[in-house]
């Protein structure tokens, strides 16, 4: 099952040239770029592992692409995303984030439903790895 998250989730996967261009856009805006990866793509899992520190003071997308290549080598079977962090006062938050790598075989997400007090129903999603 193809799992999507963040920016460009309705587009096919970006290739490296397209990723570079998106990084250029982020750098032009002065955002710092962090690389994160996880094997648990559950939408509630917001804590992905960081691949090194977020990269401040970069001028060119190539710097990020080098790190991304390294990360893919180590965690090719994980989901990898790029997060662009804006440090401006009052924002100080991730402004853009998109998936740049997904495992060859993706887990599926299934829904379970359970009864609750007074015939209420509760839903939960499960990532089946």
């Amino acid at each position, binding site marked *: 099952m193809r799992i999507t998250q963040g920016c460009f989730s309705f587009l096919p996967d970006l290739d490296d040239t397209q990723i570079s261009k998106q990084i250029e856009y982020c750098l032009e805006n002065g955002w710092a770029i962090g690389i994160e990866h996880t094997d648990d793509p559950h939408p509630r899992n917001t804590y992905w592992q960081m691949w090194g520190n977020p*990269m401040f003071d*970069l001028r*060119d997308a*190539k*710097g990020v692409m*080098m790190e991304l290549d390294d990360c893919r080598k180590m965690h090719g079977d994980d989901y990898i995303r790029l997060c662009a962090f804006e440090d401006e006062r009052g924002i100080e938050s991730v402004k853009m984030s998109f998936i740049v790598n997904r495992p060859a075989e993706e887990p599926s997400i299934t829904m379970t439903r359970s009864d609750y007090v007074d015939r209420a129903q509760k839903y939960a999603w499960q990532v089946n790895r």
Partner: protein
Amino acid sequence: MTLDSEHSHANDAKIQDVTINARDNDIAGNQASVDLAAEYESSGVAEVLRELDEELIGLAPVKQRIRETAALLLVDRARRALGLSHQTPTLHMSFSGNPGTGKTTVAMKMADLLYRLGYVRKGHLVSVTRDDLVGQYIGHTAPKTKEVLKKAMGGVLFIDEAYYLYKPDNERDYGQEAIEILLQVMENNRDDLVVIMAGYADKMDMFFRANPGFRSRIAHHIEFPDYSDDELMQICESMLAEQNYLLDAGAKQAMQDYITQRRAQPHFANARSIRNALDRARLRQANRLFSQAKGPLTAKQLSTICEEDIRASRVFKGGLDVDRATS
């Protein structure tokens, strides 16, 4: 951004030319042409070289070498546009010369030049020394060097006092690790960054002898000569003019004497010594005005440096005490 898009339009036109020519695949029958003189002006290279000529005093051999390099790159770019060459030329350089001979300044101009010619994408200069590249314990060096390299991508990495990277007397020195990463990046990322190594001529020679990998990866060795006394005097005057100061007749003579004497003393650093001397002269001038002035001062008084401001320097008393004690 606007610059880039113009460039890419120009490139599109050339790519069309190239595809047409690739079909008949015959250089003699190649009808496409390139106007080098127009390229020279439009790429902004002419402007950078003009600036170089105007802003930097002396350094004739350096300027000559840079002009040659610019010509080579311009021709190479034209050849590429016509499909005659496909490889990126090796652009890594070494600048050797004594301190204060303008290596960093020229490196900045070089970054600008390479950017205008399209050989680097961003044209910024990242200036580092050994401390920025080499770590203090095992496993610290590689991330540190990579961090610097990432920042330098798309621009020029300027390694000042590059020979400190290699310490032959300590075989467990982490400098070697930085050197290996650098060599690898210089080879594999030739499209992404240009490395300029700078340092004293003799020490750089030793460094290159000990690391033949660098020598073969560096195409341009540029030597920076020391400034002559006259050139230093000119530099001194242009520095002062920039800050709206001027020397009176006595101070000019004193400055000339200062330059001759300072050159003979240890730690002479060409233009940098002059800048430091001027900083101290301004300090003494301010002190003099403050302690001696009676009544309001005119703009001329505020901006004139007198003979006594310069003559008070320790250089006229035989240099710094520490130097006299040791030498």
